[in-house]
């Protein structure tokens, strides 16, 4: 398949691995902060190809994983409102809330529908004018622009029954917070899709002030290994900068139109991240101008008290301090079929990727 096979070529892979082996001397930890990277790294068996002195850590890159349990509890509360359709991306419905999950509410009769795009949720709202449609907006700079477009369109169409419950987040504050917390990260495999929107500028601080290598990577094995090579090179020569490996997609300035759209609809607010707590200006709230599409403003629901599971170490796993194998629930009380922590739900979650591909 064009644009895929050439990035999965065994010979090229061998050559890059040999090059990594040649220049890599220090014991280093590299972190990926994009769930797509986590999945690709494990699916292709990339850790089995690297020398032992290079450790790969999975960071807070899975949107489902970093969202708060309160977000799920509130979504569940919305799903119990009369005449309401909850539209959501698939992963979210299996994430455990404090006492229930969207999946369980669905089995009990709540109208919860999986969509592949927020624009499907817009048509769903148009086709069901007698119902309230609440879309669960989740994800980083990758999915936030389409949520922004949905609100923009809903405004143009003057839709009365569409609203969005935002858990959208932005990535750089989390990347900085991890280093501030003392997690040993020598370099970031920076997220390809996020950077497509934001451009490379958002990581400048991380490379220059925080002295962490930064390479924006694509999602194929050759992309990932080439990025690892570039990171190792930066680290071995103490030359920290932001480089783009994924040049065929990412432009240094990003997607300006998408950035404008984000700016129009959202503002930066403090937000809670699993494992990291509240990070300043790390979440996307809906601007006052569009408040009539903000589920939090439109619907007043009583949300149950948040109960976190004892023993789940998702937080530390998301910080790269522990791996899923360190968790006593992993593979026993917590499996993809019956997940305790969010990291076991999403196929971008570290625990899920470990469970499926690496146990």
């Amino acid at each position, binding site marked *: *398949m064009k644009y*895929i096979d050439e990035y*999965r*070529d*065994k010979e090229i*892979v*061998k050559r890059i691995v040999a090059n990594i082996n040649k220049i890599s001397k220090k014991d280093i930890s590299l972190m990926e902060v994009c769930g797509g990277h986590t*999945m690709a790294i*494990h*699916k*292709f*068996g*990339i*850790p*089995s*190809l690297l020398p032992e002195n290079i450790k790969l850590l999975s960071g807070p890159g899975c949107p489902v994983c970093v969202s708060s349990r309160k977000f799920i509890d509130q979504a569940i509360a919305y799903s119990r409102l009369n005449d309401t359709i909850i539209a959501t991306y698939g992963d979210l419905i*299996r994430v455990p809330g404090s006492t*229930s999950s969207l*999946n*369980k509410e669905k*089995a*009990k009769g709540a109208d919860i529908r999986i969509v*592949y795009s927020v624009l*499907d949720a817009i048509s769903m709202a148009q086709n069901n004018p007698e119902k309230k449609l609440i879309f669960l907006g989740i994800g980083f700079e990758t999915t936030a622009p389409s949520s922004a477009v949905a609100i923009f369109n809903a405004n143009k169409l003057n839709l009365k029954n569409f609203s969005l419950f935002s858990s959208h987040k932005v990535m750089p504050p989390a990347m900085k917070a991890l280093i501030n917390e003392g997690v040993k990260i020598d370099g970031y495999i920076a997220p390809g899709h996020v950077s497509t929107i934001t451009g490379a500028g958002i990581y400048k601080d991380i490379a220059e002030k925080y002295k962490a290598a930064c390479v924006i990577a694509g999602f194929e*094995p*050759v992309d990932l290994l080439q990025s690892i090579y570039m990171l190792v090179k930066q680290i071995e020569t103490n030359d920290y900068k932001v480089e783009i490996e994924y040049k065929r997609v990412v432009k240094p300035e990003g997607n300006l139109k998408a950035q404008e759209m984000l700016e129009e609809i959202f503002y930066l607010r403090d937000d809670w991240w699993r494992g990291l707590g509240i990070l300043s200006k790390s979440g996307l709230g809906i601007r006052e101008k569009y408040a009539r599409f903000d589920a939090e403003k439109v619907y007043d629901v009583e949300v149950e008290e948040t109960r976190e599971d004892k023993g789940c170490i998702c937080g530390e796993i998301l910080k790269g301090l522990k791996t899923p194998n360190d968790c006593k629930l992993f593979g026993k009380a917590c*499996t*993809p*079929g*019956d997940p305790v922590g969010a990291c076991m739900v999403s*196929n971008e979650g570290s625990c899920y990727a470990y*469970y*499926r*591909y*690496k*146990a």
Partner: protein
Amino acid sequence: MKTKNNDTILLGHGSGGKLSHELIDKVFVKQFNNSILSVQTDSAILTVGQSELAFTTDSFVVDPIFFPGGNIGKLAVCGTVNDLAVSGASPLFISSAFIIEEGFSMDALVEISETMAVEAKKAGIEIVTGDTKVVNRGKCDKVFINTSGIGLLNKKHLDISTGENISIGDKIIVNGSIGDHGMAILSARNELNLKANIESDCACLNHLIKDALEVSDEIKFMRDATRGGIATVLSELVKGKNYGLEIFEELVFVNENVRGICEMLGFDPFYVANEGKIIMVVGKNDADKVLAQMKKNQFGKDAAIIGEIIDKHHGKGWINTEIGGKRIIDMLSGEQLPRIC
């Protein structure tokens, strides 16, 4: 049985993956408890007089009921025929029971029945009994079909369904491309507005299997890789056993358009449903002979040896990835796609 508070049936319980297995173990096997059921093979193996019979049943709720490469009727015949055939039995007779929604099109019902008749004839079996129920509009979705079947089992094939003769060095064969059925159904559902031109691989495989059994007595295990894909079959094959298996990803054939959709939507073809694919474990000396025989059949023309049983990683399946890395194979958990068959 005691259940957790407010436990309810989730779609994942019908997915054929981990949740289904848990449900079967904790509810059905526990309640119906008997020595034939507890083996949990594709077909129950029954001794009646001097003969060994294979007996199986399956219900079909696919959505949409018509899809590229088949319809719910074709699935209902092929599914049951294949469950019998992979047990090593020659399918003879099947039943068909219809649950039909009030208001369902008569033309559609005729078309489905015609397809069933054609498939039955091709497979060399007869549909000899049936049942019809009609329920109020909205109480089922268009039409659901249950088929049961019986087949005659040659005594020398008695161990195929359990795979108890599998040994180190045996080769693993799959009879062609994987993931076609799942992705055909997904693209036939108009939710995604995909025009993918993928046909389901739905087919009766009893002739293919019979031909293979005729050339070799070293076929040690067969299973059709339906829901949960080949990954689920491979993972079950080694679970709890004192051997492991390894698969070479580059030897597993995936059609380009199936691969395309999988890449786009994040599905792993190893976990996507098939309706005309079997995993076969064959003694290493006979593998090439069996493969050559299978390739003569239209449903085996792309058959390939994709891996082998190994004396490492006991209880686990490993994939050597296309780039030379290694990863584990696990059973499908939770729902991947509901109502795929």
